[in-house]
C-alpha cells in the first residue's frame, strides 16, 4: 500500500516535470512552427546553473531563482543569436541546426564544469519526510516539486486561456498568418514565447537536479520523452501535453516499479528478470505505438481551424 502511494506520487512528480519540458516545446512549435532539439540543453543548463549558483550563494532557493533567470536570459540570447534565423526554414534544417547546438552545449559544459557530474544538495528542511496520510511518508522536496509544477501549470493555463498574450499564442498555434495580420509585433512575441519555454525547461532541470546527478546529456533522454508526450498529446496543445505528460510519467514510473514483480508471477524467475528491464523501458514507446494506430493525430490535437 505504502509503496503504491509512493510510486503514484513519484509518477505524478515525474509527469509534471515532463510537462514543464513538453509545454515549452509544444508552445514554441505551435506558435513558431519551430522544432527545437536544444530544448533539452536548456533543461541541462538550468540544472548546472542551479548547482553553481547554489554553491556560490550557499542558498538552494536563491540559487534556483538565479538559475531560472539565467536560463531565461540564455534562451533569449540563443533565440536572438541563432534560432530566429531558422524560423520559416525546413523542419529538417531546424533539427540539424539545433542538433549542432546540443553538441555545442554538451562540450561547453564539459569545458566549463568538467566531465564529472555535479551534485545539488538540498537544504535540511527539504530532506525531511512528510506524513501525507497516516503511516505514509513522502519526501518534502518531491512534494515541493509537485506543488511548484502544479502552480506553474495553473499559471500557464491562466496565461494561455485568459490573457491577451495567451489569446495571441493560441491564435498563433492554429493560424500563423493571422497574428501577423493583426499587426502584432511578432518578433517580440516569438522572443517572449521562446524565453518562456526556456525558463520552463530550466525550471524542470533545476528541480530535477537534486534527485538525479547534474550531468552532461541529462537533457537528451528526457527531451525524447517530451517528444513522445507531444506525439501522444497532439502537437501544439497545452492541455494535451499536460494529460499526456502525467500519463507517461505514471506509466513509466509504475512500470519500472511493478512490472518486474508482475512478470515474475507469469514467467519463470530467470526469464522475468531478463525481460522486465527491457519491457519496462519499452512501455511508453509501446503506448505511443498504440496511440499512433488508434489516433495518429494525438489524443488532444489543437483545433485546426
Amino acid at each position: 500500500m505504502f509503496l503504491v502511494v509512493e510510486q503514484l506520487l513519484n509518477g505524478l512528480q515525474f509527469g509534471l516535470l515532463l510537462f514543464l519540458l513538453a509545454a515549452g516545446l509544444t508552445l514554441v512549435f505551435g506558435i513558431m512552427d519551430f522544432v527545437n532539439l536544444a530544448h533539452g540543453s536548456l533543461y541541462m543548463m538550468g540544472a548546472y546553473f542551479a548547482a553553481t549558483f547554489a554553491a556560490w550563494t550557499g542558498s538552494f532557493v536563491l540559487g534556483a531563482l538565479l538559475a531560472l533567470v539565467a536560463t531565461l536570459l540564455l534562451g533569449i540570447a540563443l533565440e536572438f543569436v541563432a534560432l530566429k534565423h531558422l524560423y520559416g526554414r525546413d523542419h529538417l534544417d531546424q533539427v540539424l541546426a539545433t542538433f549542432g547546438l546540443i553538441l555545442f552545449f554538451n562540450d561547453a559544459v564539459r569545458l566549463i564544469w568538467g566531465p564529472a557530474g555535479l551534485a545539488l544538495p538540498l537544504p535540511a528542511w527539504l530532506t525531511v519526510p512528510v506524513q501525507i496520510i497516516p503511516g505514509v511518508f513522502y519526501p518534502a522536496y518531491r512534494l515541493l516539486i509537485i506543488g511548484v509544477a502544479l502552480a506553474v501549470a495553473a499559471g500557464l493555463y491562466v496565461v494561455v486561456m485568459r490573457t491577451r498574450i495567451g489569446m495571441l499564442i493560441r491564435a498563433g498555434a492554429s493560424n500563423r498568418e493571422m497574428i501577423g495580420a493583426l499587426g502584432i509585433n511578432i518578433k517580440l512575441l516569438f522572443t517572449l514565447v521562446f524565453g518562456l519555454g526556456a525558463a520552463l525547461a530550466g525550471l524542470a532541470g533545476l528541480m530535477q537536479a537534486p534527485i538525479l546527478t547534474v550531468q552532461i546529456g541529462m537533457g537528451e533522454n528526457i527531451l525524447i520523452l517530451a517528444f513522445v508526450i507531444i506525439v501522444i498529446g497532439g502537437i501544439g496543445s497545452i492541455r494535451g501535453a499536460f494529460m499526456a505528460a502525467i500519463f507517461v510519467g505514471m506509466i513509466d514510473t509504475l512500470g519500472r516499479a511493478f512490472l518486474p514483480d508482475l512478470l515474475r508471477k507469469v514467467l519463470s524467475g530467470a526469464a522475468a528478470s531478463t525481460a522486465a528491464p527491457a519491457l519496462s523501458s519499452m512501455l511508453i514507446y509501446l503506448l505511443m505505438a498504440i496511440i499512433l494506430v488508434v489516433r495518429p493525430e494525438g489524443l488532444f490535437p489543437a483545433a485546426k481551424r
Partner: protein
Amino acid sequence: MMPNLNVSNAVVAVLCAALIMLPVYSAASGNIFILTLFTRIVIFALAAASLNLIMGYGGMMSFGHAAYLGIGGYAVGILAAEGIGSGFIQWPVALIVSALFALVIGALSLRTRGVYFIMITLAFAQMAYYVATSLSRYGADDGLTIYKRSDFAGLINLSNRTQFYYLCLACLFGGIYLIWRIVNSRFGLVVQGVRSNEQRMQAIGFHANRYRLVCFVISGTICGLAGALLANNTDFVSPAGMYWTRSGELMVMVVLGGMGSLFGPVIGAIAFLLLEELLSQFTEYWALIMGPLLLLIVLFARGGIMGLLGRFNRA
C-alpha cells in the same frame, strides 16, 4: 545517355579511384591509420547512402537510422557470442532483423508526416537503444565484444585489413548501384513522385504509403548491412553505438554531402568524419566547433557539397 563530363562527376570519379587505390597507398607508405580510418568512413558512407534513399528521394526524415546500425551489429555480435560464427548465417540474419524492425517502425511512423515523423522515428530508435542497454546477457550498457569476425569459409578473411576494406568498399559501391537502379526504376519514380506531391500521386492511382513503406524497409535493410560491417570493424557492439546522436550524425552526413544526390552521402561521410578526426586532434572539445559549424552549414550551404559543385557545372 553518357554521363556528362562536369565538375561534380569528375570529383566523384576521382574520389572513387582514390578509394580504390587507398590500400595501395597505405601499404606503400606504411600508413595503417589511414586505412583504418577510411574503413570506418566507407561503412558510414553506406549507412548515410541508405538514409539518403528515404530522405533525399523519399522525403522521409528518419531520425532513427542508428537503430539499424545497432541491430545489424547486435545480430552479428549475439550470434557470435552464441557460437555461430558463420557470416553466411550472421549477415542474412542481420539484414532480415533490420528489415523487420524497419517494417514495424515504418508502418507506425508513416501514419504521420513531417515533424511527427522525425519525432517518432527518433523515439522508436531510442526504444531500441534502451532495449540494448537491458540485454544483460549480452553486456547491457557496456556492450558486447566480438572475439572472432564473421567467418566466410575461407572465401574472404575479414581480419585482414586490406581484404576487409575492399569488402566494405564493395558493399558501398554495390549499395549505391542498387540505390541508383531503384531510384530510376518504376518504384523509384513513384517514391519520388510521392515526395513531390502525395495528393497528386493518390489521384492518379498510387497507394502512396505502400511505396513509402517498402522504401523505408529497403533503406533500413541496407543500413543493417552497414551495421554488420561496423560490428566486424570494431569487434564490438554497444548501445552507445545506436544512441540518437549517431542518427543525427548520419543525417548531417547526408545533408552535408547533398541530399538526393547519389554520391552526396559518400562525400558527406568523408567530410564529416575527416573533420571530426581533424578537430579532435586539434582539441578535445571538437564539438564546440562542430556544433556551430553545423548551424552555419544549415544556414548558408543548403544543397550540401554536391550542390556547391553543381554550381560550377552551370558556370
